[in-house]
């Protein structure tokens, strides 16, 4: 469904992403993990060309995203749902309008778009707040609206850029549950950039560990965290052990 080949991105002399390649099958959930600044967000933004890679290629459903015309790219982006860390809702539009926006600008009549928006909002538990402006919603609420917006096109690929990073732990769970549901549906290939270790362990089919712009480990959660081969993998394993011990001893 999604293939990333040797993508590379530099900012001046700084290498943000270096020769990253991976692929995601339809319905598969892949978590990208790694320390801050390791190039995770840049990598998934290059998938829908929100950030233009210096080299490499990205194939979605057989189409080379980087070679598409601007019109084709816009059409492609409608097939790739994107959930940002900071929600990025349009402040002047209600929750429902935020969800409708992409559909309406794509040419869908408002009424039809409204039905879809209501359906999506219901899916993320936000139907009751459909007429609220983003500033009237909690952080979790805003992120759920953002998820509804990303789902509106029923995209075959959904990219998650640290969707819970801006949320407090209680709200994190709300969002993670939705993501889990989506993953269980297997309706879309999901690439999730996250620091949520439990989520990765529970939901991800595969984990990509990145460090300094490169993928240093790739495999199932059990492989990566059970038998880490990289330093960063080992640190994740230690963290996981620490969290488990703490939980056990506390409980």
């Amino acid at each position, binding site marked *: 469904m999604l293939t990333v080949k040797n993508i590379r991105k*530099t*900012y*001046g*002399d*700084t290498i943000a992403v270096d020769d990253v390649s991976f692929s995601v099958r339809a319905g598969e959930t892949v978590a990208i993990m790694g320390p801050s600044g390791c190039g995770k967000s840049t990598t998934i933004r290059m998938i*829908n060309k*929100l*950030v*233009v890679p210096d080299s490499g290629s990205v194939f979605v459903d057989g189409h080379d995203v980087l070679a598409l015309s*601007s019109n084709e*790219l*816009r*059409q*492609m*982006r*409608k097939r*790739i749902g*994107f959930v*940002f860390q*900071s*929600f*990025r*809702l*349009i*402040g*002047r*539009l209600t929750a429902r*309008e935020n969800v*409708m*926006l*992409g559909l*309406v*600008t*794509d040419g869908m009549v*408002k009424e039809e778009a409204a039905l879809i928006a209501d359906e999506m909002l219901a899916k993320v538990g936000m139907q009751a707040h459909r007429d609220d402006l983003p500033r009237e919603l909690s952080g979790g609420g805003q992120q759920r609206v953002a998820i509804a*917006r*990303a789902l509106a096109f029923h995209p075959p690929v959904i990219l998650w850029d640290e969707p819970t990073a801006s949320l407090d732990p209680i709200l994190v769970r709300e969002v993670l549950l939705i993501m889990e549901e989506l993953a269980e549906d297997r309706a879309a290939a999901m690439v999730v950039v996250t620091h949520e270790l439990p989520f990765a362990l529970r939901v991800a089919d595969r984990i990509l560990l990145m460090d300094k712009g490169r993928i240093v480990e790739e495999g199932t959660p059990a492989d990566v965290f059970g038998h880490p081969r990289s330093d960063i993998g080992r640190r994740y394993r230690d963290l996981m052990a620490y969290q488990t011990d703490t939980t056990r001893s506390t409980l």
Partner: protein
Amino acid sequence: MIGKKIILLLVISILLGTAASNLIAEIANGYFHTTMDSLVGQYGEYDFIVQVQEEKKEEAKPVLEEVLSQHFAGGHYQEAPVIGGRANFFVAIPDAYKTKAVYERIDSYFTVLPGAAGLSIISEPRFSIRGVPQGALESVRRELERLEGVRFVFLDGPTIHVMIRDMADSARLQEEAARILTDNRVIEVRFPVGAEPDSPARLGEELARKLQAEYHPDFVRYVSIDEQRGEEARLRSVLSEMKRFLAAYRSKVTITMTEGGRLAVGDIVSLKSDNGKASARITAVRGQTATAHITAGDASEIGVNSAVYRYDEQMTETLVGEAVTDNPRHRLAQVVGSVGDLSAVLPQSGEDVGTFLQDAEMILADYDAKLSAVQSTASEMEKLSAIVGRASDELASADTTKLRDDLARATKAVDNVGRWLSLVSWASRDVREAKASLAEVEQHMVTLGTYLDEFHTRTQEAEKVKRFFGDMTASTRRTVDALEGFDAKRVQASLVQAEKSLRALVETDIASLTDEMQSVMGALPAMRDDDIDETITMLDRLIDGHLVPNKRIQLLTTGQLTAEMAAPTIYEMVGHDNVSINESELGIIEPNTYLEVYQMLHEVKRVLAGLTAVVCTVLFMVLDHTAVISMMKLRYRQRYGRGDDRIRQSVRRLWQEAYGYGWCVGMVLLTSIFYLAGGGVPYLPFIVIPVIGGMLGLVVARYAERISPVSEDEIMAGESLGMSDGEILTEIVIPSARPGLLQLLNRRTLRFR
């Protein structure tokens, strides 16, 4: 889509900006025009400004109306503000009267106004030319009259006024007039003092012929008329009079040189007195006497007498004489003072002398009666003498009582006559002699009394008495003869005449005379001697031609003959090269102040339109285009935002499309609005306006993100939803931007309002 919107926005912005610029310019222009019209009338509405003294304004109105009805039927006038004590009337006359003949004698129509103080021609459209030599006025006038569009040309002294039919032709006609003036040249030959030709006119004519023959220009004409005529001659005459007056007005110093003292003309000496000192220049020396004029200081500072010193090169002081200074200003002041004193005492003195003359006349009127009394006394005396003679021998026994009584009466009579003669003794030598004789008689009579007393006791001295009587009778006879010779009637007539003259003198208004003299003295310049000397020197220079042009020859010719070419011929004809030769255009087109003011107002309107165009451009840029520019800059940052060295970033940033957009929009907006609103800035060519517009656009682009920031989050969200830049602008950026035209236009296509 967004491109169309931007173009539509630009078109609407240009139309609105043009309307706003025109509106503001028209409002300001209307205000200035209204103000101007109230001061000087509308352009072309009136033909003349007639001025009269303010106090005669009301009196002048009916006369002005009469002049208009009499000479310019249908004409009218409008009162204008009083300026500088002069009331102004705008006068308009019907078109039919606007002719050369009327304009050349227009002054004469309005001189009948009470308090007439001047007239200015303000008929429009018109332009004027000045500085044309008098001899060339007619030929220039003829050439101007031939120009297409000229209505008529009239002369106003040395100025040529050209009335034109249509103001639109003004610029063209002025250009053609300028060409006439440029094509024709005046070559002027000026002669310094002492090198003037005997007959400039003859020399001028000969020069013209010779230059024509040698250089064959289209024409060479002698156009000077009379060099000593007109204003220059009058000026020279006035200056000479001023000099004469000042020369008489300054102090004169007469120096008597000491033995061995030597002075020469031009020497500067120092005059010193107890009061002060002054310097003087020797102007004449005759023997031991020199005259001088004070060059530093004033006569009042040294008084009448002063010592004269000369200084040698080592500034050693030597006494060379004594000076007496005659200060006419001081004398004048004294005379005025004396006349003032006279006016104070003259009335009383006249009254006293008048009374005296009246008394004298009364006495003279009684002269004959008095004379008869004297004659009678003389006769009595003679009789007495005879009696005394006859009876001298018998006197011893004679009764002298009666005789003594007679003598007492006679003595009294003589005494009366004597007092009377004292009063009139000034009138005639005869009277004075008679008075002297009478005194002698009186003395004799006193003596006689003594003698009679003694006679009474000393009868033996009868002989002595007899002789005495004889002497006394003779003296009395001489007195009577003298009195008879006195012409009392003539003296009386003289006294009457003298009294009349005296009364006339007393009736003279001496006070007014004094006042007038003081007024004259007050009007005289309060100048010190050194000021006078300096002024006279300056006047000499002026009169000698240093500043006032002396004789000259003016030749009118074409541009084919230059002063440089003509110089050798001129030197040859004049006989020397001590002349100055200049070449100039035939005249100067004088700016029409009235037209200039209106052109200036037009300029103001254009400037205001231009400034409003600038303001509108900035406003439209700020309100409508900053959001677009901000988004462009965001896009740029997304492409090149991080990394890269600063210098490369700065250079590349200058070329980003946001600045290009700002430049283009600013240029298009300002240029279009400026042009359509008729904007203009003096000395600024139109080609600069697009550059200014572009620069404004750059400045706005530079600060666009501060003026209208855009949300990068929202834009990226839009991108991730597959929205185009146009859709992002329409749905996300513009609705959140500053309210403006673009936002209004955007509402039409906005999906979520």
